[in-house]
């Protein structure tokens, strides 16, 4: 089993390279054209990109930051499960998807810029290259039916 901690130990591989893996580059291009909020995380779980719809969730533009570390994203969104219990890093959908190399679809709650908890359906699939290297994950955050979403209220 891979934990967030062991994912973190692999970061030196990515950080030593000036260029993102081609899978992340192409995923960013796809995410840029989608209407749903999308985050791209690297193999450590750090957010390396989010699209304009996701900017509403974070309350800030991606161009204002270079990278949002896993810890920073966790602090900003304060994710919780459907019962409102805080999710630690090892149980975040993206971390689970990369650790277990499988898609994850689940409902969580996140704090928007309005400070209110909002339910979001989260779909994550890991990005594994042809050579078998885990490069990161593609994270889609869907506002659940009946909720205006944190962005709309922000």
């Amino acid at each position: 089993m891979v934990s967030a901690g062991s994912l973190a130990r692999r970061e030196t591989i990515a950080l030593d390279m000036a260029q993102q893996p081609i899978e992340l580059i192409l995923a960013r291009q796809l995410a840029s054209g989608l209407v749903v909020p999308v985050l791209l995380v690297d193999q450590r779980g750090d957010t390396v990109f989010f699209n304009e719809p996701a900017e509403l969730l974070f309350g800030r533009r991606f161009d204002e930051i270079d990278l949002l570390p896993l810890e920073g994203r966790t602090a900003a969104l304060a994710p919780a499960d459907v019962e409102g219990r805080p999710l630690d890093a090892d149980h975040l959908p993206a971390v689970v998807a990369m650790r277990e190399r499988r898609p994850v679809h689940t409902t969580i709650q996140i704090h928007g810029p309005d400070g209110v908890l909002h339910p979001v359906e989260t779909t994550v699939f890991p990005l594994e290259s042809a050579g078998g290297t885990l490069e990161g994950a593609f994270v889609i955050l869907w506002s659940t039916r009946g909720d205006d979403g944190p962005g709309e209220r922000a």
Partner: protein
Amino acid sequence: MKVTIWGSRGSIASAGPETVRYGGNTACVQVSDGPGTIVLLDAGTGLRRAGVALATTDDVIHLLLTHLHMDHIQGLGFFRPLFQDGRELHLWGPPSTTLDLRDRLTRYLSPPLFPVRLRDLPSRVELHDVPLDGWSIGAFTVRAATVVHPGPTVGYRIERNGATLAYLPDHEPALGGLDDQPSWTSGYDLAAGADLLLHDAQYTPAEYDERVGWGHSSVRHAVAFADLAGVRRLALFHHDPDHDDEALDRLLAEGRSLARRTEVVPGCEDTALEIG
């Protein structure tokens, strides 16, 4: 390091009086640094003439394929060293998640597309999936990385004694975003600081607009990529088969006018470039 261009055309060979200066053979480049080991990049129709020259030597030949589109492998069946008894050759190609390199090449090197099967060749051919973490070929240090182009495709970076060649003949960095962000630019690590970059420059900007996603670059994109990567010299490569010598002269002039730091040179067949 001596870099010899045996073919620089893209898509399909285009011999004729209108292409004599830039050449009509498809991609094939030879890299050498004294006797012993020869590195060839791609097996387009230019490989035939390379084979005529190399058949008189006993150098070990390493043929590095960027991908298996026809304009990059068509010369294989006419490469004289493949038909020399006992000649040692190594074929390197991009890894695939489904078929190995032999199975994929056999689709071409077998009837009905070609009369001779790969397994019937008298030479000693070894096939290798390209490792994506670098390796050595003789005195050369080679690195490969996947790049933006349809299908499994790699580019190469070859170093020797402080001289660096980058080879990205089929590459569309603009598809991933070519906006002064090295970390989000396909191929950047391969080309960074290279003495010479052979790069896809197939289209005019107007042609590119009609062919986004086809896996190729405009001259403008090639120059922007080379400038971003801090390349010393850019040779325009993978010329469109419909571009005659005069059209390529105009593209060269456009490239030179756009370049901020990179020296732009024509990628002409039969050209030998020294680096290092």
